[in-house]
């Protein structure tokens, strides 16, 4: 692996909070999202199922087709005739699902008929004219419903509503349980929520009649894979699909699941011979724009009396709703954080994924790890209580020590670096832990209830994509990687093209910092085209913005491509100056001789030789100054059930929440919120800070407000932002963010992940704080969200939230 000194020739930019490059464009409203593209389109609208579970008996679209301005209508049935079913990733059972409902609807909001019209208003009008006859079936809504053998089957051919059931044991779990002094057990329930980006799904598909192919514009998050999925489903070869990703207004995972709609739009654009546009509405997004699954988790910890955790067993049941493509992954990815920040010798995990008539699920910020850390960190508090230990002390007794890094968990995850005890010490000092406890006592005597909650979490990044296939066997994807093209133009300025497209992370800014320090120029001279075009950009099956991979493989690719360009410029400069390459240095956009500063050429002069006066190039040197590189993380293990790493980098954090509970009304006020965060070296500390806070707010929303409530008929009762309550800036505290930097030995710049962490660690900080505040009432928190009604009920009757 390249050393940091070999990569960066100056240290002027990396690590500094430089002004973000992308903001001006966004703030001025001149960014180019799919809906801003100047393409003459027809519009599609979807008639969606009003039933959670029903047979489709008859569809009559004749009146809609007769409406002036309506161009084409397509039913799921017709789609099925022209496409292959959606391919599941994680399980082997047969479960046939197409990109639209065929014969049967499986969730409220599932697309049944698509209508293309001259504009979106007419398309929506036409939906009212379609007649569909349904035969309602008994809906399967909850996990209990799904597990009940008497319940109807959602996929008859699967023979069960359980699509994945696996058990994996790592370490000698039986011995460990014999060694234990006591075992504590608990059952947790986590509800459904989602990240709901500001810009929902957006797609334009244009059919090119000349060569029977398609051009897609979409804010897809994982286009590398989507190209494969769309082409496979349409049964076309990949040269028939050009995929373009323009600006994207937030992803958080849920834009990994939009590709089925690309399939539908492709068929429609061919039928209508016109570009077709679909901009998802908010309600469509909330109904079927994917959720994180709700989950039931049973967990037990094997403990020594002194507080040491020896081992843990979980039984994890995920309600994966109704999208077979991603069913099962929320269980498997838990191995990335299964033992949290602790020295745990053995784990046993029984993973169950059920399908129900709830909406589709897909990777949502943190993917399963928020649930894993929630149950684990709750258990640590419960264990502390049982053993009469302070929750902070309980954690100190179990933390992996800095001297034990790198640490390999029982299943093979490798935590590369970090100082977990110091992270907590810093947090406690920052809060003033002892004073808080005093104040808590004082206030209690006055009838006020404040509490503090600690949560320590591991926040992994860069997925080793083989993990999806752990239960199933044959991996289609493995490891992780990204591609980049770095070019120097006529004027000696640098442009970067990446295989992933920024959706809020600041790719252009951080890339320019790194390239600037690699080439000794000002970041203003580095630009980045925030667009992916599959016929121009470098990309792989792994390409996209997900799993915190940017700092690792995306920048890895940028670094490798920049290094190729730098090496070439050095070779050309050596030739132009007649100086040995080893004597050359870079400064302010020039290459000069370290022995004679007068001997210098600018990047522009070098570019002039590379692009125009090519006869002056050194012998054998190709013209041009543009290089492509792919970087794959060298630390991904081969998929295996015994020893595998789900993710490559592991940031960590301690969250400390101080809350006050109004015990009369059940409302929870956040008083203070401290995030001590270690993501290794930081390229841009302010972006990291923003990510830490933003992801934490996602977790706070999930803990307090957001909840996709379904009734027993499988109707979603939170289908607008009036009922699906996102957190607002009002009501949030000032976040106190403390950074630590334990460089990662496994990434080129010593960086780790920064984008998901808060969403993982925050849930328990709040839960633990509320339980602490309510300890005089003996209330235990075993579920989320912490809704006021549940809080009051727990205080007065049930003693359990």
């Amino acid at each position: 692996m390249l050393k940091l000194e070999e990569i960066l020739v100056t240290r002027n930019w990396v690590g500094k909070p430089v002004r973000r490059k992308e903001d001006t464009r966004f703030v001025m409203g001149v960014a180019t999202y799919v809906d801003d593209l100047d393409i003459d389109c027809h519009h599609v609208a979807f008639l969606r199922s009003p039933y959670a579970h029903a047979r489709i008996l008859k569809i009559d679209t004749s009146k809609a087709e007769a409406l002036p301005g309506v161009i084409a209508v397509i039913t799921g049935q017709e789609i099925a005739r022209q496409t292959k079913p959606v391919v599941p990733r994680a399980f082997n059972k047969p479960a046939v699902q197409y990109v639209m409902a065929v014969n049967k609807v499986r969730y409220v909001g599932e697309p049944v008929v698509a209508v293309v019209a001259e504009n979106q208003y007419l398309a929506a009008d036409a939906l009212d004219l379609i007649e569909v006859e349904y035969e309602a079936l008994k809906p399967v809504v909850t996990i209990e419903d799904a597990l009940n053998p008497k319940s109807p089957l959602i996929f008859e051919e699967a023979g069960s509503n359980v699509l994945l059931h696996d058990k994996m044991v790592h370490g000698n779990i039986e011995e460990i349980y014999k060694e234990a002094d006591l075992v504590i057990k608990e059952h947790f329930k986590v509800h459904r929520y989602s990240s709901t980006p500001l810009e929902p799904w957006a797609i334009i598909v244009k059919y090119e009649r000349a060569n029977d192919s398609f051009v897609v514009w979409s804010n897809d998050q994982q286009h590398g894979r989507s190209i494969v999925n769309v082409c496979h489903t349409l049964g076309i070869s990949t040269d028939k699909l050009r995929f373009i990703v323009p600006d994207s207004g937030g992803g958080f995972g849920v834009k990994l699941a939009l590709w089925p709609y690309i399939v539908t739009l492709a068929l429609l654009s061919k039928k209508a011979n016109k570009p077709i546009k679909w901009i998802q509405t908010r309600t469509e997004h909330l109904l079927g724009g994917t959720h994180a699954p709700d989950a039931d988790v049973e967990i037990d910890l094997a403990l020594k009396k002194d507080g040491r955790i020896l081992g843990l067993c979980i039984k994890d049941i995920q309600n994966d709703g109704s999208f077979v493509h991603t069913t099962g992954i929320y269980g498997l990815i838990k191995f990335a954080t299964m033992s949290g920040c602790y020295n745990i010798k053995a784990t046993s995990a029984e993973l169950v994924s059920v399908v129900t008539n709830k909406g589709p699920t897909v990777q949502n910020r943190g993917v399963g790890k928020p649930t894993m850390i929630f149950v684990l960190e709750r258990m640590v508090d419960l264990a502390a209580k049982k053993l009469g230990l302070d929750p902070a002390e309980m954690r100190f007794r179990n933390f992996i020590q800095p001297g034990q890094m790198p640490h390999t968990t029982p299943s093979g995850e490798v935590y590369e670096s970090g100082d977990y005890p110091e992270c907590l010490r810093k947090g406690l000092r920052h809060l003033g832990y002892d004073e808080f406890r005093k104040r808590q006592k004082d206030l209690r005597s006055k009838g006020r209830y404040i509490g503090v909650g600690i949560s320590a979490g591991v926040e992994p990044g860069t997925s080793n994509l083989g993990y999806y296939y752990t239960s199933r066997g044959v991996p289609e994807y493995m490891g992780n990687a990204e591609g980049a093209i770095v070019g120097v133009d006529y004027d000696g300025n640098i442009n970067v093209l990446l295989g992933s497209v920024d959706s809020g992370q600041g790719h252009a800014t951080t890339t320019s910092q790194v390239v600037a320090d690699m080439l000794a120029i000002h970041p203003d001279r580095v630009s980045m085209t925030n667009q992916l075009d599959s016929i121009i950009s470098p990309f792989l099956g792994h390409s996209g913005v997900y799993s915190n991979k940017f700092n690792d493989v995306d920048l890895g690719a940028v670094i490798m491509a920049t290094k190729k360009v730098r090496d070439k410029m050095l070779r050309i400069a050596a030739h132009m100056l007649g100086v040995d390459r080893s004597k050359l240095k870079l400064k302010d956009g020039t290459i000069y001789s370290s022995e004679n500063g007068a001997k210098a050429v600018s990047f522009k002069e070098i570019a002039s030789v590379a692009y125009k006066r090519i006869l002056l190039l050194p012998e054998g040197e190709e013209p041009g100054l543009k290089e492509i590189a792919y970087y794959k993380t060298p630390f991904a293990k081969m998929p295996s059930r015994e020893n595998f790493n789900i993710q490559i980098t592991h940031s960590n954090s301690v969250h400390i929440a101080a809350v006050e509970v109004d015990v009369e009304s059940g409302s929870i006020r956040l008083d203070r919120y401290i995030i001590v965060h270690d993501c290794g070296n930081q390229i841009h500390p302010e972006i990291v800070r923003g990510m830490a806070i933003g992801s934490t707010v996602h977790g706070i929303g999930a803990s307090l407000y957001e909840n996709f409530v379904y009734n027993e008929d499988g109707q979603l009762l939170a289908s607008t932002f009036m009922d699906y309550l996102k957190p607002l800036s009002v009501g949030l505290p000032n976040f106190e963010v403390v950074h630590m930097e334990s460089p990662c030995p496994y990434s080129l710049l010593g960086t780790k992940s920064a984008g998901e962490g808060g969403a993982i660690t925050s849930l328990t900080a709040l839960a633990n704080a509320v339980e602490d505040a309510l300890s005089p009432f003996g209330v235990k928190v075993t579920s989320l969200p912490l809704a006021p009604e549940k809080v009051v009920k727990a205080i007065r009757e049930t003693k359990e939230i």
Partner: protein
Amino acid sequence: MIPNKFEYIRPNTLQEALSILSAYREDAKVLAGGQSLLSLMKLRLASPKYLIDLSGVPELNYIREESGRGNSARIAIGALTTYAQIKESAVLQAKSPLLVQTTHLIGDVQVRNRGTLGGSLAHADPAGDMPAAILALGAEIKAVGPKGARWIKAEDFFVTAFTTALSFDEIVAEVRVPVLKGYKTAYMKNAPRPSDFAIVGVAVCLQPDGGRTCQNITIGITGVTDKAYRAVGVEESLRGKQLDPKIIEQAASRVTDGVEVNGNIHASKEFRSYLASIWVKRAIQAAMSGA
């Protein structure tokens, strides 16, 4: 926003607006701040064929004191007056502050800048804040229609959810609230998040006798049932009584007497009733300790 097709009309006088409304009858709707109507049109829950935008009718936007002796002094507020204007009104703040107090808890800045008093009342959202406040104030609403103007008492105005005593061809022109002397007022609400609609909202006008005895009290409640209502039971239990915590609490438990309480995902029926009693208590206490 993908509404049904509609025609947009922007009259310049109230008279013109009324005649358009009479012509198109149930097919037309007037548009004030749009903070409720546009959301409904977006979801296609409302599909007016003609949208009569009142923003060109300046004669409906004012706050002025109307003289009168003693308790008959009134403040007249034009229907198109926005929440933001009410919030900043020195006259209201000095002479009848309850509406001002209420606006502090309505929506966010955008909603307060656009939303109007008349729109809020005419919309009659069962969880709207202003309906509770105007009930507590015993306000009167001036409706004008093809046959001229009539005054409707606040307590007669709200019929049920999203339904008022207005006829389809009438427009709310003005709301009159009393100048309050010797009263203390408060508006409080419980909502999931700061700018949300009320789970329960409570408006209190309290006339203490100088000491702790309650001479008179009126209480408007919103969010609890299909329309805003006066908590008559609570009022009765307090009139002439010492405002001791025990007495207030007992009285507060009568807040949902005789009403069918709503339940939804944010608060069940039982919890909402419970919260209503808590918030009545708190609002009375807030009024007592306030100006």
